[in-house]
């Protein structure tokens, strides 16, 4: 009997338990459903953020303008490879598409990488790459000029603004490299030198790509250090190899074409690695 009673009692308990469980489950399910509906319109709950640990830093690149081994000063006389005296009054050019390579050969590609450098404005000749992952970097590659895609993408801002005096309005495209000055030997009546080098597509395009190794030491981007990579820009290279420029006849260039390409081939070896300060 006791055993039997106990059984009956058990069944009742079980029924009760099941009923309660069903009610509980339904309530929870409804509640969950409610929450999940709410969640669609609500921002996810903020999870407590761990203390941020910096994983990126900066790297600076300084372009040092030289004539041979001598630092370039605007409006000062120098002697070019053909031994003609000349001075530079204006030097402006585009640097774009900067990529730096780590010791393990992986790369950091700078987004929106367009700079207009102007020798008369020293601030413009130091570029700062930001959000650079901490690592040791062994080389840099970049383009002199503006790539063809961006050269044909309409109205731009910043370095690429059409109002920076580095854009041809009648034959669209950027002046990739602009050097102006004078020379007593110039064939121009006013003894000027005017080289506006442009042309962004086809066989006569004037962008040139550079890849420069740092050697040792490498550039170490870490929480404590922002390395500065110095690159040399030798203006004499513009006047030689493969074509030795004679300013008596080659004193003016202001359109795309085979002549512009000739000057671009000359500046294809204009940049060199200098040194790093870590």
């Amino acid at each position, binding site marked *: 009997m006791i055993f039997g009673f106990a059984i009956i009692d058990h069944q009742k308990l079980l029924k009760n338990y099941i009923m309660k469980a069903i009610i509980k489950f339904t309530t929870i399910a409804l509640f969950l459903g409610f929450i999940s509906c709410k969640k669609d319109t609500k921002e996810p709950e903020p999870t407590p953020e761990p203390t941020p640990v910096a994983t990126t830093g900066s790297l600076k690149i300084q372009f040092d303008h030289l004539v041979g081994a001598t630092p370039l000063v605007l409006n000062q006389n120098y002697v070019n490879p053909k031994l003609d005296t000349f001075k530079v009054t204006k030097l402006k050019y585009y640097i774009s598409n900067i990529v730096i390579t780590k010791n393990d050969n992986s790369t950091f590609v700078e987004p929106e990488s367009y700079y207009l450098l102007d020798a008369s404005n020293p601030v413009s000749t130091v570029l700062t790459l930001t959000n650079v992952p901490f690592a040791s970097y062994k080389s840099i590659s970049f383009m002199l000029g503006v790539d063809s895609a961006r050269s044909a993408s*309409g109205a731009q801002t910043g370095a690429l603004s*059409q*109002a920076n005096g580095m854009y041809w309005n*009648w034959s669209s495209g950027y002046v990739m490299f602009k050097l102006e000055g004078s020379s007593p030997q110039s064939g121009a009546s006013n003894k000027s030198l005017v080289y506006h080098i442009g042309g962004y597509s086809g066989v006569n395009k004037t962008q040139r790509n550079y890849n420069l190794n740092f050697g040792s030491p490498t550039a170490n981007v870490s929480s404590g250090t922002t390395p500065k990579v110095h690159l040399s820009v030798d203006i004499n290279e513009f006047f030689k190899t493969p074509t030795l420029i004679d300013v008596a006849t080659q004193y003016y260039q202001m359109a795309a074409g085979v002549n512009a390409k000739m000057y671009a081939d000359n500046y294809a070896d204009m940049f060199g690695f200098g040194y790093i300060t870590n």
Partner: protein
Amino acid sequence: MNKIANIFFLFGVLIFASCKVDPRIVEPLPANNLVEVVPAGWPQPVYSFSVNTITEDKFVLGRALFYDPILSVDSTISCGSCHQQSAAFAHADHDLSHGIYDRVGIRNAPGIFNLNWHPNFMHDGGINHIEVMPLGPITNTLEMGADINPVIAKLQASSKYKNLFKKAFGTETVNSQNMLRAMAQFMGLMYSYNSKFDLYKRRESNAELSDAELRGYNLFLTNCNTCHKEPLFTDFSFRSNGLAVNPFINDTGRAHITGEAQDRFKFKTPSLRNIAKTAPYMHDGRFNTLQECLDHYANVKPNLVNLDPLLQNSGLPLSTQDKQDIIAFLNTLTDYKLLADRRFADPN
């Protein structure tokens, strides 16, 4: 019950439709709305406003700029001076463009419409994008003779433009990109696809072509459609059509841009849409009538430098009647809707 089912059905259709409709393809153009249009059967445009979202405020700014002589060095010449709506935005009765200080340019101001399909601009194709196109005439010393920075400074000093730029771009600061994008928006929305011929092709409004117009259309297909290709009525190619070189101008055309001997005296094929309204004709406006143009094509002098191969054998074999019929057809290409569209009129 039926009502409820209907409502559900409609609701479902609406949801389905809202997923399916490409908002860029709206046809015909709602009279007072500013939307991108790609007429049925047309190729995709080169420029799609994707980075220059259409808004009424940008359009209003672009319209103000287009008609304002402030863009020229002495504030005398506007874009609208040489691009008149009644002439499909060409310059009526002017063979060559007429600029500041009564200077005369070297080329004929072309009509402006369907610019979003153009891969390049100007008779020599030297300008590569609709947004930078206004820089050509603004800086040309024979046209508006200005530089972009003084123009920006003038706009910046104007309370009217500070206000318009603020509305359009959220900032009073004027820059060349915003200025050029507003202008691209105004000009890019000048669509022409509602000529009598278009209505006939779309079987709308009971549009019919007369016998002469139909004969002209067939002659056009045989003789003209290779270069002046439907539906834009140009293939955007550069060709020499056999015009004798004007020794006073000696315009080398496409070669001026490329420097290539093979491009000497080649010019961009213009659209034939609205051609009845854009006289005078050719890159230097040397012909006053369509009759003169067809007389030229029917009697092209051989051996001209870089003459197009399609015109080698003395040009096109057209009789007097053929020419009349082709002209009758060309007259069906006038889009009176565009010519009368108040949105594109001078706001002043």
